[in-house]
């Protein structure tokens, strides 16, 4: 399988020799389970430490070992970290895919390959470097059974030499990677060095790609979105976490477990949290709702299939008004689909999750720092609005490594929403659970265990009046449903506002969200540079839409809505929400292939649609 969607190339062509500095895509084609993850991380970190903006994307199969995997590192001096369509530097370790991988490269790319693969005969418009890995590894690693694990570190050394990476940075990255395992670190360092030395002695640099030290990454961290979310949840004060493993969400909770064990055990050795692996997603959300009802900050993390299974319970929470946070790390659906590929395909079904009239709040992070921040937002909003808040991350964000400024400590206190304490009840005497006393649609609630005879109310998924008594009265039902809708309207002013970048007086707007953002950053520059085409930009961060979203559509003649699904799901929500007069302005750019969105596709498509 080729991971790029460019047409296969094989024709000879002249090679450009102009140096290309700090702007390249390096792809490692390997086999999963072969331990190349460490090598790739070291390579990524080495470039990062060189001060060059970088991103790493893992394209892995849905099995455990033995199938093709591609890891793509993009280094870019301008900070473009979206997927790039073209691969500049291929590290071909996998016999199974090597041919197709090589054939799909654009002319001028470089290929580093395992000597026995003899790839150099395939094309004559590429630069080829052969490395006898087996020979090299045998020399550095006497223990035969460890060789498989160490072999991959060799290409790190070779690449360091070819791209001009500082071996000191490689060593630093490598020692960080094997922090607790000195022996492994030494062994791997030897392998990297062997690669470097081999390259120095045997390979003649012929490709134009080079890394030169910059200072763009000062103070920055590298983290994946799921770990960032985990940190965010811990600092949001989460107390009950439930989960059922599913790619790509499992690592969110697994990292959270580690963090919580380290930082949330009280001085008495007791946990200030509970994390439970549930028997399935129905149980996971059930526990979240039970805990939310009883007053915990509760959450779970899942992916599409889990979201579908949660549909009935989500309606219960919506209608009984119980807070909870659900992370949907989106992967490609429908059904099992492509479980190890990224998408933004659950927007519509999650917004309307459950039968009857339901509408859910969605938050949509685009970066690891937003994963961190929106964790707090999500819990605060969930408790403020007494409803489930879905955080719509995706596989690309959740499971890949991203650079980021360090996260900021949350400066505002936790908002636990409208909860009446025993003392409040003593003052008030009584309360009506579902009464809109404040005009924002939100009633006051009490927690089970509140020691006051008037504290109890009867939560039920069936019709009820303001006092939460059973009611089948048409007027009670209608009034209650309208109040719940009022909450949703109120939420518009409280959910995270969009990021708006105005190009000046452009008549064209682009709307994107989540990880599509990174392609848009680059695409807008391409549009400007290559076509002198300037567009304003709005990055959605939440549903329901805030005032700014409506204004943005209002202010532009044409608005392109870019997303990673087939059915233009966010565009659909926009169509339902903007003034009907404005619907004609909305145009869709949608992709559904499971690869992170790239800038070039967007640029081309906008230009085609603009008739250029």
């Amino acid at each position, binding site marked *: 399988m080729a991971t790029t969607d460019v047409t296969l190339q094989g024709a000879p062509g002249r090679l450009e020799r102009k140096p290309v500095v700090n702007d390249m895509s390096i792809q490692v084609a390997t086999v999963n389970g072969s331990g190349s993850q460490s090598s790739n991380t070291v390579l990524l970190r080495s470039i990062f430490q060189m001060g060059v903006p970088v991103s790493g994307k893992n394209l892995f199969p849905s099995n455990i070992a033995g199938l093709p995997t591609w890891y793509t590192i993009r280094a870019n001096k301008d900070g473009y970290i979206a997927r790039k369509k073209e691969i500049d530097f291929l590290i071909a370790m996998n016999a199974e895919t090597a041919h197709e991988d090589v054939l799909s490269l654009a002319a001028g790319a470089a290929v580093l390959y395992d000597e026995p693969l003899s790839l150099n005969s395939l094309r004559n418009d590429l630069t080829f470097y052969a490395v006898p890995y087996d020979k090299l590894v045998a020399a550095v690693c006497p223990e035969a059974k460890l060789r498989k694990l160490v072999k991959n570190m060799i290409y790190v050394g070779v690449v360091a030499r070819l791209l001009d990476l500082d071996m000191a940075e490689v060593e630093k990255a490598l020692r960080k990677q094997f922090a607790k395992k000195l022996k492994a670190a030494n062994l791997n360092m030897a392998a990297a060095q062997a690669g470097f030395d081999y390259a120095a002695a045997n390979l003649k640099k012929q490709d134009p790609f080079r890394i030169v030290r910059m200072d763009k990454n000062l103070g920055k961290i590298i983290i994946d979105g799921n770990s960032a979310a985990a940190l965010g949840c811990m600092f949001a004060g989460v107390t009950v976490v439930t989960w059922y493993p599913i790619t790509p969400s499992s690592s969110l909770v697994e990292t959270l477990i580690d963090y919580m064990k380290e930082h949330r055990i009280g001085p*008495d050795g007791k946990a200030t949290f509970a994390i439970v692996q549930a028997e399935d997603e129905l149980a996971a959300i059930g526990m979240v709702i039970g805990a939310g009802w009883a007053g915990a900050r509760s959450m779970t993390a899942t992916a599409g299939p889990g979201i579908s299974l949660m549909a009935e319970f989500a309606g219960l929470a919506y209608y009984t008004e119980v807070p909870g946070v659900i992370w949907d790390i989106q992967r490609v659906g429908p059904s099992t689909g492509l479980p190890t590929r990224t998408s933004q395909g659950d927007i519509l079904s999650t917004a309307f999750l459950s039968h009857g009239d339901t509408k859910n709040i969605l938050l949509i992070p685009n970066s690891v720092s937003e994963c961190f921040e929106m964790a707090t937002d999500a819990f605060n909003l969930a408790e403020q609005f007494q409803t489930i808040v879905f955080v719509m991350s995706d596989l690309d964000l959740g499971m890949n490594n991203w650079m980021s400024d360090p996260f900021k400590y949350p400066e505002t206190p936790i908002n636990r929403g409208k909860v009446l304490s025993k003392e409040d009840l003593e003052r008030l005497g009584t309360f009506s659970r579902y009464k809109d006393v404040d005009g924002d649609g939100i009633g006051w609630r009490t*927690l089970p265990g509140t020691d006051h005879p008037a504290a109890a109310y009867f939560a039920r998924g069936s019709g009820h009046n303001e006092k939460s008594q059973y009611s089948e009265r048409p007027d009670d039902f209608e009034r209650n449903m309208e109040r719940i809708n009022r909450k949703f309207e109120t939420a518009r002013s409280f959910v995270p506002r969009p990021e708006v970048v105005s190009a000046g007086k452009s008549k064209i707007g682009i709307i994107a969200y989540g990880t599509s953002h990174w392609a848009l950053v680059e695409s807008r520059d391409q549009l400007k540079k290559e076509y002198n085409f300037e567009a304003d930009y709005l990055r959605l961060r939440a549903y329901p839409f805030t005032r700014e979203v409506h204004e943005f559509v209002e202010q532009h003649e044409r608005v392109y809505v870019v997303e990673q699904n087939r059915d233009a799901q966010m565009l659909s929500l926009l169509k339902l929400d903007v003034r009907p007069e404005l619907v004609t302005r909305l145009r869709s750019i949608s992709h559904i292939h499971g690869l992170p969105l790239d800038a070039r596709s967007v640029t081309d498509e906008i230009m085609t649609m603009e008739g250029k």
Partner: protein
Amino acid sequence: MATTSSTPAPKINRIGLSVMEYKGGKTTLCAGCGHNAISERIIDAMYEMGVQPERVAKLSGIGCSSKSPAYFMSRSHSFNSVHGRMPSLATGAMLANRNLLTLGVSGDGDSASIGIGQFVHLMRRNLPMVYIIEDNGVYGLTKGQFSATADVGSKLKTGVVNDLPPIDTCSLAIELGATFVGRSFSGDKRQLHSMLKAAIAHRGTVMLDVISPCVTFNDHEGSTKSYKYMKDHEEPLQDINFVPYFEEIDVEYDAGTTVEVTMHDGSRLRLRKIEESYDATNRIGAIQRLLEAHDKQEVLTGVLYVNSTAPTFIDLLNITEEPLATLPESVTRPSREVLEQCMEELR
């Protein structure tokens, strides 16, 4: 306290509440429904045990049985949820607030049909709660279809005969890890009353399958969950005598035929055996005896299994004593320094 009135003071329990404080709303179930009798027994047991109503969380699924929490203990919080999934809600609630006394009420359809998955995993966890199945062998609320506890050969009013084997929720619960399992009959006031009191004292999953005839859809000739059938086929295993920890008075008992189990809170459960060889602390024996009962068309009632020492799910999770629900921000949000440390590790 001096009282000038001559009317006798209302009877109160050890925490000063009258039985009225344990009542619920007016039932909307059919007159004669077994479920109503169970509500009455719960009221009495909670009253006698002097349980603070505010400490109780009542949870249920969907069904006539699942409506019943509305008909007892209005001073307790309650959650009437979705069909078959109350166990997960109860689990979440207990995680949030380990001090709650959680009482789940379910039906045989709610637990053994749609709900068997969550039932199985609840039992496995030994979550401290009292889980009652009001078992009538049919779906009452949807008008009388068979549930998965219906016995082979049981006949619906319409003449339809059940030919699938029943799920015995008690043997299942014992096998899976519940630590207090009993079967009773809504018509057996004394037995059910004692069993409920012991259940309240137990720490761990209490699973009580209470045969509770549905007078509207399953109380006819041919039903094996009718009042008449129960009268003819009930086989009590023991005389149950429960002595709460706060009761001083004690009497001698015949150690030969009586087993005494000391509960978590110091209460004592005394089972005077009717069936000589039955040992309610023997897990495998209990399951075996239950399986045999089916073959003999007996309905065994009594405390089938009790283990008052196994760790509960809350114990295993090592949760702090204070309810997680109300931990202050100072405890739930780590410090600025912790964040800085985490950031440093990622550089």
